[in-house]
């Protein structure tokens, strides 16, 4: 390191010890992620919105009102992916609520006076979301297998879970954009609106086939419909289509740009 050493800094009793990194202090980024994951999972509101709600809605939707066994098994498969996607979407967006809370506490400024770089802070946030989306995905898929008797090949379970996990990235960036760009109160409103609007329009709750024609056409262009497609295509024994990948990549670029702009704006004012 070329960091200048203050010449007048007197040697002190602790200096010999200070030269050795204390045990138990890992690299900063994993520690930051661990801290934020703990903080997120200790938030009762997050646990309800990010795991309990999608699980409860899944069990409710698949066990009420449908009498025909054939229909019911088909809907259980469809809804398993839909509700896992809905829960993961909410958990990914929630990262923005954390950022807004940090901003409200002045914590983003405090982080800026630590050696942690701004890129590390944002990366840490995104990695946090990559962990906190897992409870929703795991809970709903497990409920599908155990409570609703959904039967899939082992590779299908693995592929569905992994694709639903990877597919949260655009929504994490959308959440980061909301968190950096908006104040605490408006962030939670914006996140809720995004979560509800995108879930419904994307057909995560009710299949898009049941939509009016115009809404069904629109639905194909939403990131959530294509996100759900990642899982639904696996149920159909095929890889996600090129169109799905292209639309998701487009939204990924849009939300990444939004997150970068919002971050820059907040760095100017925060």
């Amino acid at each position: 390191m070329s960091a200048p050493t203050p010449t007048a800094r007197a040697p002190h009793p602790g200096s010999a010890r200070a030269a050795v990194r204390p045990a138990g202090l890992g690299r900063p980024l994993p520690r930051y992620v661990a801290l934020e994951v703990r903080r997120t999972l200790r938030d009762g509101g997050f646990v309800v919105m990010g795991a309990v709600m999608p699980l409860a809605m899944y069990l409710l939707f698949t066990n009420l009102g449908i009498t025909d066994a054939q229909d019911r098994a088909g809907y259980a498969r469809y809804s398993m992916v839909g509700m896992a996607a809905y829960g993961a979407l909410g958990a990914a967006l929630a990262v923005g609520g954390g950022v807004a809370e940090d901003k409200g506490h002045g914590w983003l400024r405090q982080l800026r006076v630590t050696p942690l770089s701004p890129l590390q802070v944002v990366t840490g946030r995104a990695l946090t979301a990559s962990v906190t989306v897992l409870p929703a995905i795991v809970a709903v898929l497990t409920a599908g297998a155990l409570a609703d008797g959904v039967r899939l090949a082992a590779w299908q379970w693995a592929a569905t879970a992994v694709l639903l996990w990877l597919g949260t990235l655009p929504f994490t960036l959308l959440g980061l954009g909301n968190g950096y760009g908006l104040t605490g109160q408006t962030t939670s409103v914006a996140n809720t609106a995004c979560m509800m609007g995108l879930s419904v329009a994307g057909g995560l709750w009710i299949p898009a086939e049941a939509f009016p024609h115009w809404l069904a056409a629109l639905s194909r262009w939403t990131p959530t419909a294509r996100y759900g497609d990642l899982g639904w295509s696996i149920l159909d024994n095929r890889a996600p289509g090129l169109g799905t990948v292209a639309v998701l990549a487009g939204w990924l670029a849009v939300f990444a740009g939004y997150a970068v702009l919002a971050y820059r704006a907040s760095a100017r004012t925060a």
Partner: protein
Amino acid sequence: MATPSNAVRLAQVRKKFGAVPALDGLDLTLAAGETLALLGRNGAGKSTAINLLLGLDEPDAGRVELFGGPPHAAVAAGLVGAMLQDARPIPRVTVGELTAFVASTYPLPMRPAEALALAGIAELAARRVDKLSGGQAQRLRFALAVTGNPALIVLDEPTAALDVEARRAFWRSMRGYAARGNTVLFSTHYLEEADENADRVVVVDRGRAVADGTGEQIKQRVGGTLVSFDLAGRGSEGLRSLPGVTAVEIRGDRAVLRTGDSDATVVALAATDRVRRLAVTPASLEDAFLTLTAGTRPQGEGPPSGEPAGGAAAGGAAGSAAPHLEVSR
């Protein structure tokens, strides 16, 4: 002074927010190992100066250097720790978890337990941050500033909202960290805090440094006691030479003497039979700044008679929300 031995250097720094100048050509240097207090009223520019030297904001003009380089380089190298005025620790984590995380971001941190002990909250490591009292949260913020073992800590009004006992404990912690050979810069609007805890005091007013010296020197210039009485038609001659008097000011028919020894001054006044509606009051923040900002007048000469009446009223209005400088013992 050789640049590398300066921990902090601000040269002719200017910063405006809208049309309002927050810093108006501030000069400030701080040698490594030194403890310096920035003393000033609310709105004097202390926080702006601190934000600039931490790299949280950019100056409109002038130079800002930490350890001979730009602030962000010193921050990235882990040479700086800070207690910001309006940064509160985040909820739903424990004191120990948060301190360990901040320590991990520095290249050569101290053990988190050591930082908590230095801050006097070793027993609170397992406590959730949101369950802390105001004073405990303040100490946690100090622990977060020092746990990286940085060469420089910057504390923006660190004792605001603390009671007397907590203040005393806080300054003990700060002096403990300074005694390890570290550099400390803190801001305050209490002259006594500045005097008791800093090697050097820089008084900031309206974005400029208006005085720079040891606490003793500053106290002589801004401190003391005001002895006032009605002149009752008699002139002001001879007042300047009364025992203890450092400055004389005439406000209408009333004389205001600034004195370092009010007992001796009053006894001498009584001996000359000049006691009329006598008042002995500690010099207030506004009085102190009127003296300092009266310009380049040599020390000891009072402001021109009559002038401060309007100025004092304006100063009182501007500073009425701020605690007064505490200059009495």
